[in-house]
């Protein structure tokens, strides 16, 4: 005790001397504390005869720390892989269509990549160190299975880094003629390597859920068998689409925040347009995402029904009610943004489409209500007795998959029609076949909606296996058919249409900016929620059915406490992205100020490169 008091006195005496260096001292203490954590850690096993299997850290716990870092790394990786797809699509649109503003938008977002790439790699490195430190036995096993793919991953990183540098630093130098084609090709290569950078670690993660282990063969053969596991490709496709959605909505959210803060009209136009492009790309991916999710769940059920039931009918079943809520809000937010666009950007269109928008809103809310109806209600014993079970006599019918699949398909159809409505607003058809074409499109839409509903109702009267294998798949195919027929027909119709009302950019109300932010937060929350679902579906296994989790953290926490970690990850990721945007655009502000000072651009240019749409088009 006296030794402690002595120590305290010594520190008190020393404190005045370091008064001017508090920040340094705090930093040093933090670093020392961090480095000392392992020494405070409790090795769950291994202090005896065997090797160490687990390590822990006090307070936060090793599992929570790994959870947060892994989730942040995954979100950043989604961002880093989504942004190049987004940027490259914009560059191709500019290259083929001649609209320079798209090229500038692509450049703005590519500029983020270097800092975002480094941040993602930083979190990847931290995650790797934490995994090796906290889960040595698991990492040893995974290394043994996947060693060849580790080498491939490193090689892919080299290729990606070189391509990224060439793509970004060569942007201005490769703007004209064949050089531009080369630059577009570099963008393609960047995304090509990025795809492989995504799918290689996906193999490690999906292996944990649906392992394929062969005892014989070379290291390469064993790694290949483990890589090609049942959920690998469903996850690859799902994540690829989700990354596009994330990239689009984050672009939208950035534009939304900038739109709220900029003062001059030129900047407002620019960020309004950027918000539109981001939302459009987000919605474009969002329409396809439920199909990919359905495929993934199907594969999980086929691989192991217990895992599927744990997810959809077991302790994780309530998670899907939350998922429905988030997706529902996302659909509502995306549609709302389209409707705001029709109302404010295309003057005069509001009266024409008001009824349709109202109907769509009511339909979306009804669909969301059905989607969110739980299969079993939380009821007291008395309530359950009155209801005759945990299922509500009336609403219980809506809690099953047949109803949920139907409404999710209807929501996709409604969102698609919102987009078509926005596309057509302010234009008058001049083609001779316009009336016929519109009648055909209307018939397709009505018949498809009826077919989706009929299949949904019919699904109650057939065995589940028939519904899953045939009815739900048919519903998905019908919706895809609608999208694939109405899109080219509308494009053809609008090719000869006359613009009656010019699009007015920069006239959206502030709530449009907030709706873009809401959409991005919903996507990020969804990713964190489904990360928890995927990890929890393995229950008490590190590698399902192969390597059991014997640590004190072999349980999956309840949704409530997990949601706070998800919320924290979402918030921290938003702050990281905001920081990346801020760092990437910091130099532009100085350049702008310097250029304005020299009188080269008397009216100033936006804080970020890009310029207003009209200005861009004139170039």
């Amino acid at each position, binding site marked *: 005790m006296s030794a402690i008091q002595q120590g305290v006195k010594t520190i008190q005496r020393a404190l005045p001397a370091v008064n001017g260096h508090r920040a340094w001292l705090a930093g040093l203490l933090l670093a020392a504390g961090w480095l000392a954590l392992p020494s405070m850690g409790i090795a769950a096993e291994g202090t005896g005869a065997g090797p160490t299997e687990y390590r822990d850290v006090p307070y936060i716990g090793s599992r929570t720390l790994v959870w947060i870092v892994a989730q942040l790394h995954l979100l950043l990786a989604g961002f880093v892989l989504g942004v190049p797809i987004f940027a490259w699509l914009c560059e191709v649109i500019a290259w083929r269509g001649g609209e320079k503003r798209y090229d500038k938008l692509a450049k703005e977002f590519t500029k983020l990549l270097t800092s975002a790439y480094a941040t993602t790699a930083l979190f990847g490195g931290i995650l790797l160190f934490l995994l090796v430190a906290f889960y040595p036995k698991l990492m040893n096993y995974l290394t043994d299975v996947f060693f060849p793919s580790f080498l491939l991953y490193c090689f892919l990183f080299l290729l990606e880094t070189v391509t990224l540098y060439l793509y970004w630093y060569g942007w201005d130098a490769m703007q004209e003629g064949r050089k531009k084609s080369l630059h577009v090709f570099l963008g393609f290569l960047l995304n090509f390597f990025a795809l492989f950078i995504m799918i290689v670690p996906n193999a490690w993660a999906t292996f944990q859920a649906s392992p394929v282990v062969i005892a014989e063969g070379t290291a390469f053969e064993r790694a290949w068998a483990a890589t090609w596991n049942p959920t690998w490709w469903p996850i690859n496709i799902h994540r690829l689409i989700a990354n596009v959605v994330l990239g689009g909505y984050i672009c939208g959210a950035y534009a939304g925040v900038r739109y709220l803060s900029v003062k001059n009209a030129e900047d407002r136009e620019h960020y309004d347009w950027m918000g539109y492009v981001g939302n459009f790309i987000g919605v474009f991916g969002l329409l396809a995402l439920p199909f990919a999710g359905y495929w993934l769940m199907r594969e999980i059920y086929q691989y192991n029904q*217990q895992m599927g039931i744990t997810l959809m009918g077991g302790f994780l079943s309530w998670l899907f009610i939350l998922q429905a809520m988030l997706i529902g809000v996302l659909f509502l937010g995306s549609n709302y943004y389209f409707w705001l666009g029709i109302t404010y950007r295309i003057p005069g269109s509001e009266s024409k489409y008001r009824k349709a928008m109202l109907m769509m809103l009511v339909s979306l809310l009804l669909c969301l209500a059905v989607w969110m109806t739980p299969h079993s209600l939380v009821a007291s014993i008395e309530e359950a007795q009155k209801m005759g079970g945990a299922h509500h006599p009336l609403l219980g019918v809506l809690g099953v998959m047949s109803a949920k699949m139907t409404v999710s398909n209807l929501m996709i159809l409604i969102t698609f029609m919102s987009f078509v409505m926005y596309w057509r607003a302010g234009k008058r058809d001049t083609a001779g076949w316009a009336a016929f074409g519109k009648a055909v499109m209307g018939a397709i839409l009505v018949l498809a909606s009826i077919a989706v509903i009929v299949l949904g109702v019919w699904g109650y009267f057939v065995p589940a296996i028939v519904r899953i294998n045939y009815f739900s798949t048919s519903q998905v195919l019908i919706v895809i058919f609608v999208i694939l027929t109405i899109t080219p027909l509308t494009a053809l119709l609008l090719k000869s249409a006359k613009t009656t009302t010019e699009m007015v950019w920069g006239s959206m109300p502030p709530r449009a900016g907030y709706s873009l932010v809401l959409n991005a*937060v919903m996507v990020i929350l969804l990713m964190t929620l489904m990360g928890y679902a995927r990890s929890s579906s393995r229950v008490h296994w590190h590698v399902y059915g192969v390597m059991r989790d014997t640590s004190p953290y072999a349980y999956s926490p309840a949704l409530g406490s997990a949601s706070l970690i998800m919320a924290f990850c979402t918030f921290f990721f938003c702050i990281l992205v905001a920081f990346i945007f801020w760092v990437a655009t910091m130099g532009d502000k100085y350049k702008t100020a310097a250029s304005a000072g020299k009188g080269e651009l008397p009216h100033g240019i936006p804080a970020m490169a890009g310029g207003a749409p009209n200005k861009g088009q004139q170039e």
Partner: protein
Amino acid sequence: MSEVAQLQLIALSIVGAGIVILLFIKAVFIRVTGFVFIVLGLFSLMSLAVPQLASLPPAEGKIDIASIKTPTDIAAIGQTVFFSKGQCALCHSIGPSESARCPDLKGIGAKLSKEFLYESLTDPQAFIYRDYRHGGVPKEYPATMPRIDKDPIGLSKNEILAIIAFLQQMSGEPVSVSVSDLDMPGQTPSAPVKAAESALVADAHTN
């Protein structure tokens, strides 16, 4: 205050902080942060409003053979395994249920012999049981019965026999599983029980 109540308080505080920011702060970035606070807080509150179910690993308690005196004792152990480590209730119902993914097990102990039940649990595809309750075409189930002596369930012979005893008792049948059927500690497991650990696990452990 319960843990859920504490977490609700935290979530409410986050929402409150967001509202205060939106009411009193004018800086756009901070206002957007406040808006995000509200969204995240509401999400957490919603998550705390649904039933709070955690998934705990199955208890690894060994069956204490010495404590088993009667077949009823074996059935009592079987009931515990049925609803926990065995994960039987995840798919099967006891009594009619339209939402059950797999056959109703009520009365199954009276319909099928001990040996047949054992085979159904350890080699489910040897004989497919189809439910003709509805008449006409047999009801098809989306789920296929897994081998429960293999991982990820990996029940021991004693645990499987205990489940059979429970199914028999539940069906009003005399329990035909006796204490002498159980493997004694230190005794080499007899056929037809396979090793609880699959080849995959053995592979994982040796690596």
